[in-house]
């Protein structure tokens, strides 16, 4: 497990020093929130009804920027070969990268959340803890799958284009679950009695895709 923390710490440290991805990601998320305000009356009641979807679209798009960087960061000076040749195991590298990206993305979300609440007149404090739970589960789904696909696409042409093209369809069950649950929390203040399958789906998605990624990452890294 030590390798996991080493990789995660290395990624976080280099990102916090350069702030390349995190600045771009926060700005991008805010721009998306702005653009959505053109599409409808931002303070109307309907906003609440689509708030979950809006929030997760912003997170998913902003997340792609961070996820793209997770492996592309190692391309300079052939660092990727060095990382793969290092004594850190493939699964440790994957988990380290995933934790690093997860913390960065979660940070971006925590910055955007109050801004979203202010811009769209939505009170987030009433359901903060369940909302954070959904954020954690949904963001982990995004990063676990995203980091795997980032590793898959790191060496190919059109990398920046291929990642979202593959990631969003594959992610859609988790994205749908996160959107439905977030909307339910923001409109009714609870998960709702009919939404239990969505929670199960989200947890199941996290477990299945993390296991798949752990099982296959070695093939992806050693091409």
């Amino acid at each position, binding site marked *: 497990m030590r390798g996991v923390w080493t990789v995660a710490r290395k990624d976080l440290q280099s990102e916090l020093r350069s702030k390349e991805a995190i600045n771009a990601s926060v700005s991008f998320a805010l721009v998306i929130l702005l653009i959505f305000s053109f599409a409808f009356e931002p303070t109307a009641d309907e906003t609440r009804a689509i708030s979950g979807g809006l929030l997760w679209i912003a997170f998913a798009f902003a997340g792609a920027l961070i996820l793209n960087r997770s492996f592309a960061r190692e391309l300079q000076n052939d660092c990727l070969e060095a990382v793969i040749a290092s004594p850190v195991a493939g699964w440790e590298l994957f988990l380290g990268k995933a934790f690093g990206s997860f913390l960065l993305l979660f940070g971006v979300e925590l910055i955007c959340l109050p801004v979203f609440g202010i811009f769209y007149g939505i009170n987030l404090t009433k359901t903060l803890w369940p909302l954070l739970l959904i954020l954690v589960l949904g963001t982990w789904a995004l990063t676990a799958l995203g980091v795997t696909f980032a590793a898959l696409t790191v060496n190919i042409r059109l990398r920046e284009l291929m990642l979202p*093209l593959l990631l969003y369809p594959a992610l859609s069950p988790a994205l749908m679950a996160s959107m439905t649950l977030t909307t339910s929390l923001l409109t009714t203040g609870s998960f709702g009695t009919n939404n239990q399958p969505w929670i199960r789906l989200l947890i199941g998605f996290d477990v299945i895709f993390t296991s798949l990624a752990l099982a296959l990452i070695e093939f992806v890294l050693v091409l």
Partner: protein
Amino acid sequence: MSTMSTRQKLVYGLGATGTLLLIWNLYRVLLVLPDEMQQGAIYRIIYFHVPAAFVGWTLFLAALVASALYLWNKNLALDGFAASAIEVGWVFCSINLVTGMIWARIIWGIWWTWDPRLTSMFICWLLYGGYLVLRGAIDDAGQRATVSAVLAIFAFADVPIVFMAIRWWRTQHPSPVLETGGLAPEMRLPFWLNVFVFLLIGLAITLLRLDQEDTKRELEGLRRHAHAHAI
């Protein structure tokens, strides 16, 4: 004709059998069977819509197995098979979506609705479409094969969701008539025959496509060989 390989003979055999059976079955479906009580003539789309989905999923499953085997023994022929199966499966997947939309326009009055079955099938179509785009973006054969194999395994995770969608959720898409016995007895034989026919034709096209993949690989090898010796 004597130069035909066993695979080519198989392709023609499967294709010819499939086509003959299809013609006979089309005659049964279009001219002999009566209209359905509630839907009228349009119900006949089920004979094409459902088999297309079955064949698409079967080919995706075959690609999943071939991809997993490829990761295990790194035999590029398996990668060629997986790519062929997915390409043909994707076409059947498209047939399924288009026939479904035609049916929906007539029965529901709309081309599309975002219900779990339709949405998950559309996601399936996008995922395997992404697989085909991804293959085009990688030049190195070994790298292309590995990346594609991993993606084929991830993409297949959506197929059981599509299959189960009409069982898990209350969808606008009709519930499974095959299991609940909603299909009249005289309609069952033509239906399953069409599934069989689609399978034969799907397999024949996949093998044809596999031939092209093999030739392509051979050409690439020859080109490398010529290149190495010219310098």
